[in-house]
């Protein structure tokens, strides 16, 4: 069987296995879930190693007819962009399971259900990035909401139900708009080349400008909600604040990437002309997201909300990179998705440990953690520095590529976005100062430092952050060809740098 299907199927087999385990033995359930997710991660790494960097098309392709009368097929394949996102997903799941070993307890539903939901979600995440059939993509896109909804509403804290419903309704609304567009492009395909959902075939359609604009908007609004882009972001802070840290990692680290991934794979590649029409608007939105998210992050008192708002700022950068339409900015955006995934994961997991130790998520309640819990504090510090894109850590490379790539086409946007970096320093260093440095706040003296399980969970993430910061080449080698293809499909070529005196 093909590698992609095996990867998607493995978590489901795990689900079956876990369902058979006795509910009383929580430890065994957790271990099995971890084992399954580690196996999937190994498959993901194998796939990455076997990926041919020289080829630009889809690899690991498989195709079975599913609903022939509607031209729907079960069709999977990966290019550099989807490969890197699938790798991110399958790496994060075991880390999340290991890091949030006790998250599943005390929820509305059983421990078993928690891991079943996580593994089902893993299958959906692999599917949504691997689908090369638009209908299949939509199925994963929508079906993914169900496990997340139960994860937030069933295991979160605070106003978790309200947050879960808000998340679901926002996403469904966007999804249904996208459905209208999908129907549109499906009918057009029926008129021109015979009914199909194959995205490679769909990108060859000739659609008149007005129709293209409307269809583009249907997709774009859905993805902008998912990403989320200002002004459609309001569900994210609530959801991230209410969900367990592990769920938040998957939500911000992977699920939101479906939005930015969709912008590249569907908005830009299927509707190049409409993308060009809307670019000024989207770039403006992206810049506003960068600055607005950063400002709000500075003002947050709750550590989870803070991370959520920093993410809105980062998604602004990613969107900016995508729609600046240069190969550098596009590669940067894709790499940024990966880097944001790992640095946000680190931040959220460490914040989760801080919260569970202290019993509070207010930043002011921490203080002097550096002295009490040095390992925890250092990890948070490094993750934070990566989030503010310090050179030498992974996010710097991607942020730099986005800004440089954007500058060649939209200098003003790039200049304003650069202020986001300065604000990033503020929103990271202020909580670092408040929570980690200074005198130890009363009540924090006896907090335990990270235990071995927690170190085992965070170490690979930190290692990845540092490694990709110094040596991003392996990741970029995978991404670059795909980014180049996107730019070409969108009908752009990189602006030639003006060399002085050449005139």
């Amino acid at each position: 069987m093909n590698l992609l299907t095996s990867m998607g199927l493995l978590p489901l087999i795990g689900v079956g296995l876990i369902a058979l385990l006795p509910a009383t033995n929580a430890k065994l359930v957790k271990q099995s879930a971890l084992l399954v997710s580690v196996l999937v991660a190994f498959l993901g790494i194998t796939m990455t190693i076997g990926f041919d960097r020289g080829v630009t098309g889809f690899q690991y392709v498989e195709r079975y007819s599913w609903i022939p009368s509607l031209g729907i097929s079960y069709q999977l394949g990966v290019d550099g962009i989807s490969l890197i996102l699938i790798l991110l997903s399958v790496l994060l799941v075991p880390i999340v399971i290991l890091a949030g070993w006790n998250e599943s307890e005390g929820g509305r539903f059983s421990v078993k259900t928690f891991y079943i939901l996580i593994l089902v979600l893993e299958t959906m995440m692999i599917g949504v990035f691997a689908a090369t059939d638009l209908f299949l993509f939509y199925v994963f896109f929508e079906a993914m909401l169900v496990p997340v909804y139960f994860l937030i509403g069933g295991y979160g804290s605070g106003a978790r139900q309200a947050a879960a419903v808000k998340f679901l309704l926002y996403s469904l609304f966007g999804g249904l708009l996208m459905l209208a567009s999908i129907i549109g492009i499906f009918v057009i395909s029926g008129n021109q080349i015979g009914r199909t959902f194959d995205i490679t075939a769909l990108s060859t359609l000739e659609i008149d400008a007005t129709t293209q604009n409307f269809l583009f908007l249907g997709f774009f609004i859905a993805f902008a909600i998912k990403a989320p882009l200002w002004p459609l972001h309001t569900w994210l802070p609530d959801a991230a604040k209410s969900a367990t840290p592990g769920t938040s990692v998957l939500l911000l680290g992977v699920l939101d990437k479906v939005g930015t991934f969709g912008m590249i794979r569907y908005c830009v590649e299927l509707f190049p002309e409409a993308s060009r029409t809307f670019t000024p608007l989207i770039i403006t939105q992206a810049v506003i997201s960068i600055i607005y998210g950063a400002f709000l992050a500075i003002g947050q008192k709750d550590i989870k909300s803070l991370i959520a708002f920093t993410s809105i700022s980062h998604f602004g950068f990613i969107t900016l990179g995508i729609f600046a339409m240069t190969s550098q900015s596009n590669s940067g955006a894709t790499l940024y998705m990966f880097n944001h995934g790992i640095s946000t994961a680190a931040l959220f997991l460490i914040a989760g440990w801080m919260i569970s130790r202290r019993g509070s998520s207010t930043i002011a309640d921490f203080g002097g953690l550096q002295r009490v819990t040095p390992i925890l504090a250092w990890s948070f510090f490094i993750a934070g520095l990566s989030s503010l894109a310090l050179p030498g850590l992974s996010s710097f490379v991607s942020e730099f590529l986005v800004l440089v790539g954007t500058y060649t086409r939209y200098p003003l946007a790039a200049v304003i976005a650069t202020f986001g970096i300065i604000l990033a320093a503020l929103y990271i260093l202020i909580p670092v100062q408040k929570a980690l440095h200074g005198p130890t706040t009363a009540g924090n003296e006896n907090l335990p430092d990270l235990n071995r399980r927690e170190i085992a969970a965070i170490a690979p993430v930190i290692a990845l952050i540092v490694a990709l910061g110094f040596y991003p080449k392996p990741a970029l080698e995978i991404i670059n060809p795909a980014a180049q293809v996107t730019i070409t499909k969108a009908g752009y070529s990189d602006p030639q740098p003006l060399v002085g005196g050449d005139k």
Partner: protein
Amino acid sequence: MGFQSPALEYGALAPMLIIFGAAIIGVIVEAFLSAKVRAPIQLAISLGAVVLSLSQVWRIRGSATTTAAVNSVVIDGPVLFMQGTILVLSLFAFLLIADIDAFAAQASAVPGSNEEARALESGKIQTEVYPLTLFAIGGMMLFPAANDLITLFVALEVLSLPLYLMAGLSRRRRLLSQEAALKYFLLGAYSSAFFLFGAAFLYGFAGDVSLAGIRSAVSGGPGNDVFLIIGMVSLSVGLLFKVGAAPFHSWTPDVYQGAPTPITAFMAAATKVAAFGAMLRIFYVSLGGAVYSWKPIFTAIAILTMVVGSVIAIAQRDIKRMLAYSSIAHAGFLLTGVIALNQEGLKASLFYLASYGIATIGAFALVTLVRDSSGEVGDLNRWVGLAKRSPAIALIFSLFLLSFAGIPLTAGFIGKFTIFTAAYESGNIAVVVAGVLSSAIAAFFYIRVIVMIFFSDPAEDTVTVTIPSLYTNLTIWIAAIATLALGIFPAPFLDLIATFATFTR
């Protein structure tokens, strides 16, 4: 010239004849057998008739299109498909009806009277609901098959009159039930009058009551266009009333709430198939040529129906009323299939009707299980926290709701997708956009119910979920499996529909 007896094509009419015959036998059984043995015998007759009739539908499925009974009935692909659907849905409805304690012991007894109490006590329970249902089924099968306006009207009455009675048969909250029956009857009578009025004008226009005659008159006859318009409008009022489209929907919530739940299930599922079947035939076969006259109005009605159904459903606090408004919203979605007026629209409508019908039966079957000491509990506030005690019931009910909401991997999604695709193909993009937006609104109230069931703690005065009887259990599980199967592997079913989906003109 001697009298020539009309030729009746018994073979083609067999499915309907079996049902009508069984209904008459049911009446006789009701009159002559003792109360103790009536219920099982009635059930056996009804189920037997439905199964036999289904086998006849299956037998004649391949044979060429025929008209029967002197051209008054046409048996073509869509008709056979709809008859089959109606029969399958009725089969499940009978399984629900078999749980006879939903029905009044004696419909004629005054609510709250001694007479009523005595009848209950002595176990003299009337089972007229079986033959009534059979008559209604017969009418429903004839409705989409009718080939002229007179037969159409007769079928409409045959299906409606038993339903009016059946709506008033509830054992509990009888006054509400009788009020519903009366309301249904009065409004139904009005709509029948409109229908007849329209039929008269169409006859005036075409000089012919047969659908083919009207068709040829529409496409270039010398008829008076004013008559055509008046005829179409009035006829549509009658049909739109039956499917529960806005602004003729106001009976739906009251009747759905008041009627015994098995009957609500039957009405919601099977009547929709029959009424849309007739509507599809009339507009696809007869009035297709006048599409530019009715399409704008129907588009407006479809959009209004979707929006009214979805928006008002949000405010409902009773599960049956909520499902009623949801059925109104679905009538709006189904109307897009009528407006599409293309092959895809017909196929999509057939799929939608079947998948919606089966999920509806399943959902109402579940409603019958949630009870307290005084009977079924419709109040949503008391459904809170249901998942804590009956996770399986809660999961299956959520599945039906997700199907109604059109979430992928359920039958509802494929239905919605195909029907909107047909509408888009016909160039009616407004209705597609309105459709997805009202789907988003509708998703809200479906999900709210799921939230109530799963994420709230049970209230004090909790309801119990009764252990379903074998019949109800069967219905629920088959409906659930069908909803999932049609969502994940719709291909064989879609291919089957494709072989049926051509109207004979």
